[in-house]
């Protein structure tokens, strides 16, 4: 790049290349010198060869998808990837090429693809009994519910099992409304909570909202430290919730729902001090506080097991899905015994919810997280990764913000650091190039300009280095 380089940038570049050279010496295997400039990052080694793939080609699949599946079904990448095999934090395409999975099937595969303990639990239970419903007893659901409840603070002891995050959030919203006798629910702008009728209302990004009636939800100003008008002043944002209640409702509401770190919205960590202030407001209005832990839960934030713990609050209802089963269709709602009784006035039933196979997998996941200290790993590797990404931000003007916690990180790309103009095209380009280099990341934010890095929690420092080096390599060429 032949351009006038400001002194500050030159200094940071020198600092960065010194650091990189130190790393090059200590991790000899990590990269090799390119013929031109810089290093072509090389993937960390991995002792596994996928079985040869003999199934349909990418083109065949794509044409079948076009014919038989939703016309709105999208794929990432201009040349979509045919992913046929997965092992821990790696995915393999139909040619056997390995990729670092830095997206985790959307923050879903937490223990690692085909983790042996989880697969064993699934296979063993499937061979015995797949399904019978909760009309009969079975120990799998009871053992899992107990183990899950034990991971939650306060009086959050009663578990409801569903098949997805949407189902979990729908149930949580219904319970809040039944419990309080009120209908109004407050969620945050930029939130994502699901795609069924109630949850579509709570979701607050126009690209996910269809033109159908979505009643009883109010969207509060998002406590977004990067783009929000009050910066990181959580309490200032919290006042908006108070206003919403006082002016937009009867003064009493059903509840408040939020993600501790917004996932689909682009890995936005709620401004510090926001949640405690809002929770207090909500309680005063007689409402229940719902924490959507679908992405931030299950050790992903590293510092804590649950995302809400990072904010020092205890919700009334917690919803989970995605990572709860390492990819198996499973969701859960956990609440207090008091709130749980609200469903006894009629019959609530979920045919597949709590089936032996999914709950066996869920229990295996909890055991793996503990046994392999995945929370600690998420903290250590995540902190390291964030540091390296922040250093990269100093190097490239294209990177507007690096944020997140543990292994739930976001990198926002902008074309102008001051105006924060979303760099949509550049994001697509870098994402595609990352794939070519062997790194799969996710994309988010309402402008589609945020990289979502939510890998399986077995992600290593070497993987982190590879990811950042790849990004560096690509951005250097832009």
């Amino acid at each position, binding site marked *: 790049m032949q351009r006038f380089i400001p002194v500050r940038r030159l200094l940071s570049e020198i600092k960065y290349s010194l650091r990189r050279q130190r790393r090059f010496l200590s991790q000899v295997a990590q990269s090799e010198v390119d013929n031109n400039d810089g290093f072509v990052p090389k993937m960390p080694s991995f002792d596994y060869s996928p079985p040869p793939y003999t199934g*349909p080609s990418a083109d*065949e*699949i794509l044409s*079948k998808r076009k*014919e*038989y599946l*939703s*016309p*709105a*079904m*999208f794929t990432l990448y201009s040349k979509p*990837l*045919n*992913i046929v095999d*997965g092992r821990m934090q790696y995915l393999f395409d139909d040619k056997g090429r390995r990729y670092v999975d830095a997206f985790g*099937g*959307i923050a*879903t595969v937490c223990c690692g*693809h*085909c983790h042996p303990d989880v697969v064993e639990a699934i296979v063993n239970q499937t061979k015995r*009994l*797949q399904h*019978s419903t909760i009309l*009969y*007893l*079975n*120990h799998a659901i009871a053992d899992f*519910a*107990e183990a899950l409840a034990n991971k939650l603070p306060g009086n959050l*002891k*009663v578990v409801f*099992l569903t*098949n*997805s*995050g949407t189902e979990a959030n*729908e149930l949580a919203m*219904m319970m809040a*409304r*039944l419990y309080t006798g009120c209908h109004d629910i407050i969620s945050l702008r930029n939130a994502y909570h699901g795609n069924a*009728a109630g949850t579509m209302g709570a979701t607050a990004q*126009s690209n996910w*909202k*269809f*033109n*159908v*009636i979505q009643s*009883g939800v109010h969207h509060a100003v998002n406590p977004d430290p990067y783009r929000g008008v009050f910066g990181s002043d959580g309490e200032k944002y919290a006042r908006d919730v108070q206003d919403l209640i006082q002016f937009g409702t009867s003064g009493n509401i059903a509840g408040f729902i939020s993600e501790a770190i917004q996932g689909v919205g682009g890995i936005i960590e709620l401004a510090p001090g926001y949640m405690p202030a809002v929770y207090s407001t909500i309680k005063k209005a007689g409402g229940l506080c719902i924490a959507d832990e679908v992405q931030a839960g299950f050790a992903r934030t590293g510092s804590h097991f649950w995302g809400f713990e990072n904010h020092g609050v205890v919700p009334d209802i917690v919803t989970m*899905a995605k990572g709860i089963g390492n*990819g*198996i269709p*499973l969701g859960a709602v956990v609440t207090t015994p008091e709130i749980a*009784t609200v*469903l*006894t*006035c009629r*019959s*609530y039933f*979920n045919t*597949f919810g709590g*089936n032996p196979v999914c709950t066996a997998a869920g229990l295996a996941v909890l055991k793996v997280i503990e046994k392999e200290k995945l929370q600690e790993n998420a903290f250590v590797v995540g902190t390291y990764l964030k540091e390296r990404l922040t250093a990269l931000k100093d190097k490239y003007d294209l990177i507007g913000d690096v944020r997140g916690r543990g292994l739930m990180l976001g990198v926002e790309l902008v074309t102008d650091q001051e105006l924060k103009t979303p760099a949509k095209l550049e994001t697509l380009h870098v994402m595609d190039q990352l794939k070519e280099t062997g790194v799969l990341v996710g994309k988010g934010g309402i402008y589609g300009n945020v990289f979502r890095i939510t890998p399986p929690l077995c992600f290593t420092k070497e993987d982190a280095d590879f990811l950042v080096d790849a990004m560096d390599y690509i951005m250097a060429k832009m």
Partner: protein
Amino acid sequence: MAMLQRRLLKRTLEEAKARFNFNCYPILSPRASFSTLPSSSATASDDVPPQLPPFDYQPKPYNGPSADEILAKRKKFLGPSLFYYYQKPLNIVEGKMQYLYDESGRRYLDAFAGIVTVSCGHCHPEILNAIVEQSKLLQHATTIYLHHAIADFAEALASKMPGNLKVVYFVNSGSEANELAMLMARLYTGSLGMISLRNAYHGGSSSTIGLTALNTWKYPIPEGEIHHVMNPDPFRGVFGSDATRYAKEVQDHIEYGTSGKVAGFIAETIQGVGGAVELAPGYLKQVYDIVRKAGGVCIADEVQTGFGRTGSHYWGFETQGVIPDIVTMAKGIGNGLPLGAVVTTPEIASVMAQKIQFNTFGGNPVCSAGGLAVLRVIDKEKRQAHCADVGSHLIGRLRSLQDKHDIIGDVRGRGLMVGVELVTDRKEKTPAKAETALLFEKMKELGVLLGKGGLHGNVFRIKPPMCFTKDDADFLVDALDYAMSKL
């Protein structure tokens, strides 16, 4: 001394009754008396209950928590709203084809299939193999990447559909499927009003609760413009089997209760939760016409009736000679895997392209592989024809039982989707709730696990895995006969 005399008298009377029953009992087919030898001699002798057909399989020994331990944990960690069957709930630990095993290794005939869900049979080897093999390769990546399993499954499923029904959406449950169908209907038509039948069950999520029309399942929450029309119930409906009079009700709802335009109409062809109620013949044809004239789309809820269960047809709606605009499925689609689907026309699907609609788990490789295996097994093992064959035998025997026991008010259904409604008075059709509950327990003790349904809980739902045999059917009916005789 008096007590002994009383006991002897009671025994004598029972013996006499049994012998009387045996003499009056019409033998429909030689099969009934020879293939299940112990059961026919049971009605002849005194207290020998019918025996389960033999089955060459040994369940694994069970070393897990006991029923009591599990129940205690459920009460503590799963909430008071999680109900269960039976005074002494069963700890079911293993399943094989049409049988289930409890913690002591005792075998039961599963006549309910985990609520019409285990379509091919518990732990069916082919489906098991598909699930296990795929789980070892890749459980989950989402549709943002390509994978052949979802494409192959969608193609196979679409090929089972008539008309222009060929775009498939995969979800994780029946509720999710019906939610999506409602969204499609409202988007496509631009109208809001939905019509469903009284006694219907379409889901337990907040929107589908609106479509569901049985107070036991409806929480007091806003439903958003849903009209529940008179149920074309041949047994309890005021117009009997006169479809035209019921259809006029729908016309009236539209003309008086809406702007004249509706979003859609949804119905199960044989209501499941509602008690295996088959819609009066000719009903759907007329109603589909009426709804379409009002700009609405027609949704067929095949969550229970699909996949060959009705025997005569692959899909329930085919029994009424109609082609819907949207079809929803779940339960049997994956033999127990958490899987649901919505199939519709490309035209209706196109409105969904206005915004992003994404289902994280929907269409995952394992469930898709399982679903595809289910379709293959149903075809290969000719399950549909089997349902027709065994189903008509079962219904035949149940009708004979109806002649024998006054308590049986109605026997209805098709294929292996059968209902037996119990009444204390045949004219008044007073629901025999207590008797149903009692017989339900007795059947379990005899080794048959039935389902229960209907608003009054007085209907036995018999919807077993579709590998259910005639011997199983005989055993079931003999057990029912035995239990009813002792009432």
